């Protein structure tokens, strides 16, 4: 049943329960924060929406409770409502997807940022470390002082992939470069993604100590990093989406030298498309530099002058000459 006049609802308002053969019904469950987080979840949604327009899919997306206690329920609700395939956004879904997939062997699942763990689960992985490597190369090349920084929101393994790649990238350019690293909160305390003030303090310190460029993987806290960069008249590197475009403050846009893109939208869309084509799960699909699943944004043109260095690094990675570590 639909709310009818829910002011410009963008989701499926077609006839419900029309389980006609052949209709593609895609369900998607967000991670905490849900729809509208201007980041990760929204990127996933963009992929879903693309599937709606381009593949004619009927779509349904659900956000979990703020404590994330009902991820499994959401998946089951989607499954029970006849959605297939179903996508869980965020590594936190790893385990719940596995359970649900075993319960519903006839449905195809995908999970973003976590590996496949059942025959009907596709892991949509992103080589954040590779993208971060490029960010590191860009930072090290641009930073005259040879001093850069990294601000992580929450100290979990996902964010550590960003750190590891970034450090490797920096060292590949300047082996003696100084890299400041700071996490805002420990694993399990997700407030580190929502604390611009702390991000600001941490980045401020790095800039005061002489860092020229700070890379963040800190969600909303990244805003503080940009502010610190603006105040210090230095640069920062954004994350996930092209933040020079998504950040609306004009004074901050200028400090975002580039952003490490993580194309969750591509991953989601490609998965749905492959499903339509009859693909079955059980494997991981890694979106890396090779398929442009990660990369650097060029809005503002600030890294155009080092395009050659970046391309070279990318080529090395794609060709396997360089293996980027995913643990710091």
């Amino acid at each position: 049943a639909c709310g009818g006049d829910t002011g410009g609802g963008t989701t499926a308002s077609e006839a419900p329960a029309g389980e006609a053969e052949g209709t593609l019904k895609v369900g998607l469950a967000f991670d905490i924060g849900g729809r509208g987080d201007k980041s990760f979840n929204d990127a996933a949604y963009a992929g879903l929406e693309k599937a709606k327009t381009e593949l004619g899919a009927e779509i349904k997306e659900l956000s979990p409770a703020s404590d994330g206690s009902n991820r499994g329920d959401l998946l089951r609700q989607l499954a029970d409502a006849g959605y297939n395939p179903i996508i869980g956004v965020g590594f936190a879904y790893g385990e719940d997807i596995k359970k649900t997939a075993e319960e519903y062997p006839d449905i195809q699942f995908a999970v973003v940022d976590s590996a496949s763990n059942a025959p009907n689960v596709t892991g949509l992985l992103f080589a954040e470390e590779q993208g971060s490597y490029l960010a590191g190369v860009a930072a090290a090349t641009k930073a005259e002082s040879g001093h850069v920084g990294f601000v992580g929101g929450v100290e979990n393994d996902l964010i550590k992939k960003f750190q590891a790649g970034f450090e490797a990238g920096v060292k590949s350019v300047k082996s003696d470069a100084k890299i400041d690293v700071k996490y805002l909160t420990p694993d399990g305390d997700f407030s580190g993604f929502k604390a611009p003030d702390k991000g600001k303090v941490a980045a401020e310190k790095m800039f005061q100590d002489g860092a020229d460029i700070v890379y963040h993987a800190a969600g909303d806290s990244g805003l503080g990093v940009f502010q610190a960069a603006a105040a210090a008249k230095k640069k920062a590197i954004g994350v996930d989406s092209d933040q020079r475009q998504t950040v609306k403050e004009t004074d901050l846009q200028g400090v975002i030298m580039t952003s490490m893109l993580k194309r969750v939208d591509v991953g989601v869309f490609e998965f749905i498309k492959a499903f339509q084509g009859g693909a079955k799960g059980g494997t991981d699909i890694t979106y890396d530099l090779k398929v442009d699943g990660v990369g650097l944004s060029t809005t503002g043109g600030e890294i155009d002058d080092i395009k050659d260095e970046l391309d070279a690094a990318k080529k090395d990675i794609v060709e396997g000459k360089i293996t980027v570590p995913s643990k710091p």
Partner: protein
Amino acid sequence: MPAGLNRALFTVAGAVVAIILAIAICSVAIVAAGADPLTAFAAFFDFGASARSQSNGIAAFLNRAVPLFIAGLAVAVGFRMNLFNIGVEGQYRLAAICAAYVGSTFTAPKPIQITVIILVAAAVGGLYALIPAVMKVTRGVNEVIATIMLNYIAINLTSYLVRGPFAGQRDAGELTTTTPDLPESAMFPNLNFFFDWFGMLPPTRGGGVWGFLLVAVVLGLVVWVVLERTRFGFDVKASGLNGPAALASGVNPKTMVIAAMVMSGAIAGLIGLPEILGDRGAFNSNFTAGLGFLGIAVALLGRNKPVGIAIAALLFAFLDRAQGALQIAEVPPSVITIIQGVIVLLVVVANEVTNRLALRLEERRAARQLGGNSPVEVGA
């Protein structure tokens, strides 16, 4: 009518009025959000069309209620004697990780394995609650502040433990940090046979109703008996109603603070177990947080009495279950939190009002039955 029954009736009437009012207030919010309240309330009762989705919905509902109930019990034990254990949050997280870790280090027959895990959880929760209790007793530190601080410490400590000393093996490509998996013998059998009795389809295999529900029921009974029937329970009640009088009657307030706090913490230690023993089989970084704080609301709603807490937990769980259903009906799911908050606020207000009414009535009745107090005729 016995005085007690009279008061109970008043309480129920107050709660009903409060819930109706809360529904009314939330309807306004839902209309303001551009949705139809009827659709929204239908969503709360919409457990899906298929038999399977209904069983799943019931399972999700009960599984949510169990930890809430235990959390409410934990909080209530302290509240009964005006001891505000805000630290349930920290206590249960620390207890959960320690129990999950200890449980993963050995394998024993099911009953033994599960018992050991439960005992470890209770012990860790109780010990962690002992800290603010000792601080209060020896140095007069306000337990509200101490437990708030200890919550932060516990949260950090667990995240240190889960990625450090207690970290376990993970599947490749799995980013969730976790303790080692519990052996199969640690998993609490589920209660899905229960659905057979009603001729319903059992919920899907992996999920289902957590068997810990039974432990929670027993725990509720034990807490009720301890609080309502034993000497200890009497001392708790006396300390809560009137500290100085309890002291003069020979109740040692220090012992009481320590005993109640440790009991509260020990119960709190069990909050995480339904999830760990029923579903996850380990403590990981996705472990449900915030149950301690919700427990406060549940305890308040249930007036610190086990039966009330059970009802409150079921109510909260029932509302929480609709998270997905509401979204499917295009209603902002945050109305759930609003309803919960409004109900808590209104129910406590209703409690006050009905309490006062009931007391007034009782006084009047007492006066009437005694028949005294008719004014004397003035024979000046």
